[in-house]
């Protein structure tokens, strides 16, 4: 049984493609609130998200959501257990409207998995559209949206089914400063009101530091640090691996 508040546990996860080991025994946990996942390009961050959400089978180790193992479940089963995620480049259905795209986040969950009435679901979608400032766009096809808005729609979609844990793959990349604020405000609300746990991959260290109570650092497929941002960002090997002098000053 994981300690209280912990939603997602990654235990000794190993992932390899062919002869390449991309993740070499990664262990950490994600609790309610924001957890940051940082590391240089090619460190294995997206692979880690793919392994957690069932897209890539691990060669060793396991992932627990709540207290249940996700081993050998296919992605849609994992999603129905309460795991939402976004992708680095938003994957929306171009011809469907914003509202329909957000509804897609619920469609796979209705009637299966957790019980919820249709009325509650619709109210939930309305709430997300309003909080994320998408109401003016709701009847536009996703294809007509700028890149940054598509990313926001994808976040709304990932939250629609009220997941226990949501994995965000660089949600702020490509967004202007004002748009980032519009995005993280509602995210914070979801965390406070619904006890959501967020694992966020982000290159914007300033944002990660501001948002996360805890960050984990991945380098060459290994976890090299795990702790409060202020401490982690001061560790010399973290600075060497990733941050460089400029950002270390912020920490």
């Amino acid at each position, binding site marked *: 049984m994981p300690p209280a508040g912990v939603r997602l546990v990654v235990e000794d996860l190993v992932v390899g*493609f062919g002869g390449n080991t991309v993740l070499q025994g990664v262990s950490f946990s994600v609790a309610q609130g924001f957890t940051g996942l940082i590391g240089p390009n090619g460190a294995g961050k997206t692979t880690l998200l*793919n392994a957690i959400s069932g*897209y*890539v089978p691990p060669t060793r180790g396991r992932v627990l959501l709540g207290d249940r193992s996700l081993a050998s479940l296919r992605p849609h089963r994992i999603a129905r257990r309460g795991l939402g995620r976004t992708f680095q480049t938003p994957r929306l259905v171009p011809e469907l409207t914003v509202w329909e795209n957000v509804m897609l986040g619920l469609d796979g969950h209705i009637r299966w998995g957790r019980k919820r009435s249709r009325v509650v679901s619709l109210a939930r979608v309305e709430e997300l559209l309003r909080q994320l400032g998408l109401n003016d766009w709701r009847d536009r096809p996703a294809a007509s949206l700028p890149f940054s808005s598509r990313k926001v729609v994808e976040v709304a979609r990932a939250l629609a089914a009220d997941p226990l844990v949501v994995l965000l793959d660089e949600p702020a990349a490509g967004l202007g400063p004002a748009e980032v604020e519009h995005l993280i405000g509602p995210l914070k609300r979801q965390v406070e009101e619904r006890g959501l746990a967020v694992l966020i991959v982000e290159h914007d260290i300033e944002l990660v530091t501001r948002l996360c109570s805890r960050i984990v650092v991945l380098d060459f497929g290994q976890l090299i640090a795990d702790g409060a941002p202020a401490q982690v960002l001061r560790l010399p090997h973290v600075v060497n691996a990733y941050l460089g002098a400029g950002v270390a000053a912020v920490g």
Partner: protein
Amino acid sequence: MAQQVISGLAAGSSYALLALGLVVTMKTTSVPNFAMGAMGLLPVYVIRSLWSQLHLPYGLAILAGIVVAFGMGWVVERLTIRHLIGLSHFTTVLMTIGIWFALNSIVGLLWGYEPQPLPGLVSGSFDLGQVVVTNAQLMTLAVGLAIAGWLIVFFRTTWGVRMRAVAEDPLVPRLLGVRVATISGLSWAIASGIAAIAVLLSAQASVLNPQSGDDLIISGFVAATAGGFSSIGGAVIGGLALGVLENLAGAYLSGAAASTVALLGIMVILLVRPTGLLGPGTGREV
């Protein structure tokens, strides 16, 4: 039984040849060519007309027909396929189906639907123990293997390597200073020539009619699929095995069984090993 194996190998080399045509267009332009049978059919009708109406010597007519096939492959690529490069298989499949039916009906319009015999290329046979092997069967098999061998060598030459490079990344040949269009046109010309030989050999063994191409296309797909649409050896082995299986099924089960072997075979292969029996495995896409 050995007799069935021999006739199966002869029939199978036509399948293998058509499959080789499919592999060539797949490898270079990444187009699954449903029109391959029809593209082989038209030149064979040209061959027949050159021989029967213009009284050309048959060997010369065949050479001329293969030149026609080359030209037709080039033209078809130039007019249709070139504009679709980079589009999904969904689009190219439909395009080649359109070409398939257009070519078939052109053949029907020009030459009618009556089956037409072709003159024998070689005659005679010899005994191999209990088994009678005709020289025509031997020739069919030899031609099939020779073309397969030539292709294997060809893909290692400069032009062959360029062709393969086009399929993998259209940017690479441009860096090498080669025009992608030239390469893809050339590959369609070659594939079309091979298909003409395939249809010719299979029609030599029976008669020529507008369905001759259709009869080969599914068998060709089975053989190409067995090799995962990339392996020349796989396509040859697949084609020969299919020919043998069909003949055995025809002899020991029924004529109807023979015609369903290929159809069932392809379903089974795709269900068991979707990337082909001898092709590369795939991971799950993210």
